[in-house]
């Protein structure tokens, strides 16, 4: 069935186990598409992979500027990998600005494929190189990297010389030309991309001529690799040995959307997702807006406050109210979260964290909203807090969030982040039957009997019932004022003290139904690297590497931040030292220290980027060898 050249030319490529490749260029150069296509192909080929798309806050910053550079990194491997990779093995730079901003991430000796046609005096100047300087002639750089200048613009044009399409459309095919070359280098099939292009431009959109020139450019790039012999030997990254099953590529946002609708289905409820657009959370509302066929309702509110309030209203009326946002939006929702805590209604709140404070760096990642999620409300106002550790894990955490919100009748905050949401990995598609049902009960007058009060609690969960308006005979009022057990206003001092404790106990009780904290590596030893959220890959890889070097280092990752798994303290106490790497100034560390009085050390790097495995290895090694670390 394969009509692409793969079968014919897969002669004797070198086999290697992992490659990190990064595509970069102007925001308009289609780098996100190129990267995703490469990923898709790696996925279908059977590699494990992890991706890191990185783009500017500007929609389409002026061409050729450094702040307009868009990048997409893919780490693909025949091993089980966890990160997008620290160092780049192959950089594809479509213009000087891309080259300039990305070259320092390339591993010494790495391959750098550049579109030399763009390295003109004016372009070089635009991205800030000194007059007369051309990095492609810089001996230092040439010595450090294997720089391959290729006239991609010209080659693309030539390969499409007979096309009727305009010059602009043709120039837009450069990314496919580049992708074709890279496919050749790594001995990849072209099929998935060809199919994608046909899907994208054929059918409804009805621009098959666009599909055609893109496919031709892709193939031309591939043949160039074959013919020109400018590239080092063809390389092969065999499929990874993953657990058996059906796999797909999934991004964090996609997994979150899927998790929500799955949870809704399992609860027999609609998801009502109310949100206000904000990077990097907008993909969730956009994803759900396309899932009306599964009963999801979306509401683009006038602001974040309206969004969370509408979600509260939706839960009150009997659906699963969910709201999602990023840090500044969560700050705005604080007051309404207090109301939800008082109401004791199910509510899911997703915070896709980005670099702050304030507007900060909206497209960059960070983990600095943990303390806000824990404590950012007036009064004693506890919520459940969860955090997915990887793109695929968003599915499970979304289901957990709904399950716990419904069970405990309280807000559950899910702390995702830009890296998790935008990144992608292979995901073993679970069998829908394996996702446990979410039990929902709405009492009727007959069921509850006469003595029942609105805030009578279930002894096992500590939560009151979820009573729906429309139920005859259970009319009642709820509010944000302190309430007695009947839901009416109470200013009784002892009642307030009791209610405060009951609300806290209810959250703590969730610990009874969450899985224990697992340790990767030996269950006791010198150092435990403890993480949460999107740093899972980096921490796990670093700890594995340290163990491979013979160091006594294990790792553990908290997906449940509040309450924490019941065995957390026991796990931590089994190690001489707990080290908490975070993309913040030490927020989980603070929780660990205050709860357990354990002198946890921190590795805190707040650069708006995922943590670097090498840096973690270095810092933990220093710490173990006594050279300090930010305790």
């Amino acid at each position: 069935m394969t009509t692409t050249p793969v079968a014919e030319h897969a002669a004797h490529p070198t086999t290697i186990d992992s490659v990190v490749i990064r595509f970069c260029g102007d925001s308009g150069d289609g780098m996100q598409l190129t990267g995703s296509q490469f990923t898709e192909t790696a996925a279908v080929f059977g590699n494990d992979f992890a991706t890191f798309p990185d783009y500017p806050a500007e929609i389409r910053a002026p061409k050729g500027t450094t702040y307009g550079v868009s990048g997409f990194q893919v780490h693909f491997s025949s091993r089980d990998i966890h990160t997008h990779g620290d160092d780049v093995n192959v950089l594809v730079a479509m213009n000087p600005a891309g080259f300039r901003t990305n070259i320092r991430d390339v591993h010494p000796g790495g391959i750098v494929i550049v579109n030399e046609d763009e390295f003109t005096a004016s372009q070089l100047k635009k991205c800030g190189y000194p007059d007369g300087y051309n990095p492609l002639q810089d001996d230092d750089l040439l010595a450090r990297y294997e720089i391959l200048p290729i006239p991609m613009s010209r080659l693309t044009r030539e390969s499409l010389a007979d096309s009727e399409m305009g010059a602009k459309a043709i120039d837009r095919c450069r990314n496919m030309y580049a992708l074709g070359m890279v496919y050749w280098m790594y001995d990849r099939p072209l099929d998935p991309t060809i199919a994608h292009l046909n899907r994208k431009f054929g059918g409804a959109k009805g621009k098959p001529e666009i599909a055609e020139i893109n496919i031709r450019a892709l193939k031309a790039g591939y043949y160039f690799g074959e013919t020109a012999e400018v590239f080092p030997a063809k390389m092969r990254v065999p499929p990874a040995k993953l657990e058996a099953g059906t796999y797909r590529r999934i991004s964090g946002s996609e997994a979150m959307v899927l998790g929500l609708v799955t949870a809704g289905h399992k609860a027999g409820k609609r998801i009502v997702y109310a949100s206000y657009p904000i990077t990097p959370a907008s993909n969730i509302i956009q994803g759900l807006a396309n899932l009306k066929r599964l009963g999801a309702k979306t509401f683009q509110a006038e602001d974040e406050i309206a969004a969370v309030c509408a979600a509260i209203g939706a839960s009150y009326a009997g659906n699963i109210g969910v709201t999602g946002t990023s840090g500044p939006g969560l700050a705005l929702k604080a007051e309404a979260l207090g109301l939800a805590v008082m109401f004791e209604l199910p509510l899911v709140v997703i915070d896709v964290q980005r670099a702050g404070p304030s507007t900060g760096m909206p497209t960059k990642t960070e983990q600095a909203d943990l303390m806000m999620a824990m404590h950012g409300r007036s009064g004693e106002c506890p919520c459940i807090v969860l955090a997915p550790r990887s793109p695929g894990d968003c599915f499970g955490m979304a289901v957990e969030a709904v399950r716990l919100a419904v069970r405990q009748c309280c807000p559950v905050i899910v702390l995702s982040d830009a890296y998790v949401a935008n990144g992608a990995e292979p995901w073993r598609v679970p069998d829908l039957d394996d996702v446990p049902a979410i039990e929902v009960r709405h009492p009727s007058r007959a069921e509850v009997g006469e003595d029942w009060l609105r805030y009578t609690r279930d002894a096992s969960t500590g939560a009151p019932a979820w009573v729906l308006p429309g139920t005859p005979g259970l009319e009642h009022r709820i509010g944000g004022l302190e309430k007695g057990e009947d839901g009416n206003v109470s200013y009784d001092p002892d009642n307030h003290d009791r209610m405060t404790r009951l609300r806290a106990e209810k959250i703590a009780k969730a610990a009874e139904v969450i899985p224990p904290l697992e340790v990767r590596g030996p269950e006791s030893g010198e150092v435990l690297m403890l993480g949460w959220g999107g740093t899972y890959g980096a921490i796990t890889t670093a700890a594995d590497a340290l163990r491979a070097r013979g160091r006594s280092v294990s790792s553990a990752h908290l997906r449940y931040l509040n309450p924490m798994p019941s065995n957390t303290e026991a796990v931590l106490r089994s190690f001489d030292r707990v080290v908490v790497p975070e993309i913040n100034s030490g927020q989980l560390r603070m929780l660990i220290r205050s709860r357990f009085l354990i002198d946890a050390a921190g590795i805190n790097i707040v650069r708006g980027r995922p943590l670097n495995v090498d840096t973690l290895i270095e810092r933990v090694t220093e710490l173990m060898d006594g050279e300090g670390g930010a305790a």
Partner: protein
Amino acid sequence: MSENGDATVSEVKLSAKDFASDQDVRWCPGCGDYAVLAAMRKALPRLGHKKEDYVFVSGIGCAARFPYYMDTYGMHTIHGRSLAVATGIKISNPDLKVVVVSGDGDLLSIGASHTFHAMRRNVDLTIVLLNNRIYGLTKGQYSPTSEYGKITATTPEGSLDYPVNPVSFAAAAGCTFIARAIDVDQPGLDEVLRRAIEHKGTSFVEVYQDCNIFNHGAWFYASQKDSRAETTVQLRHGEPLVYGKDRDRGILFRNGRPIKVTVEGGASASDLVTHDETDRSRVHVYSQMSHPDFPEVMGVLYANPERRTYDAMVDEQVRNAEVEDREAELRRLMKGSESWEVHETVDGPS
């Protein structure tokens, strides 16, 4: 709930008492809110909907205590956010009858944006604004409807901002039902409350409400028996705008502006404006009629039952899209457009 999306009609005959909750009413003695509560409790049984299908929603303020006193479902939310919560309720379950009751500060100051956007969307709910032109619960600061120059706790030398005109506000937001009544006028209240609740779409009722502790008499010009006939015009669809104790005065419109005239022997009555509650453009003219220059209009200023409601349309989009076999569709979705199989310890495809 019925299948066809309308709240079903109650079979048992209910009375005002059935709508009174067991909670003591905690407003100050003499507060205008009592009258509105009484009117509401009386109006609802005659609409025939079931008690359990009503949800009263409010923000924070004296007025906002309203839900506690109705024996229906009720939510006392937070300051200014009642309409956002109410919108969520309607999106979630369009069959519920949702009535928002709150104060001028709540709905037009901190909550102004939500009020505006709910009206713009035409969410099917009723908004009852208890306008006492003051912040009652926080003890007498000026509100967005307080008159310019008002001396209050925060403005000892007089306030400096111009009041919001709630009717203009609602009109600019495209609200599909706009009405006005006075706390002491039970028949007037009764009519607008019932029509507002029956209206499909966002209905807005401004009630002139006396806060007899912090702003006593603010509406006396319009509410007192002796002056009311001179200072207000009761609107009735299809009837001319006539007012005065002897019904000897009337209003006509010229160049988009109201003009007061004397009706001589009823002859020139034909020149007067005939109230047409379906004509949105005149709401703007009505909104210009304010004391002491003009009598103020009371009753239903505007009613447009044609525009579809937001919640119904949201519901429709979803119902049109929904698949029969959700489970199968979900399985498909989970697999995604591209997936691949991994078998135990494979070592490469070729």
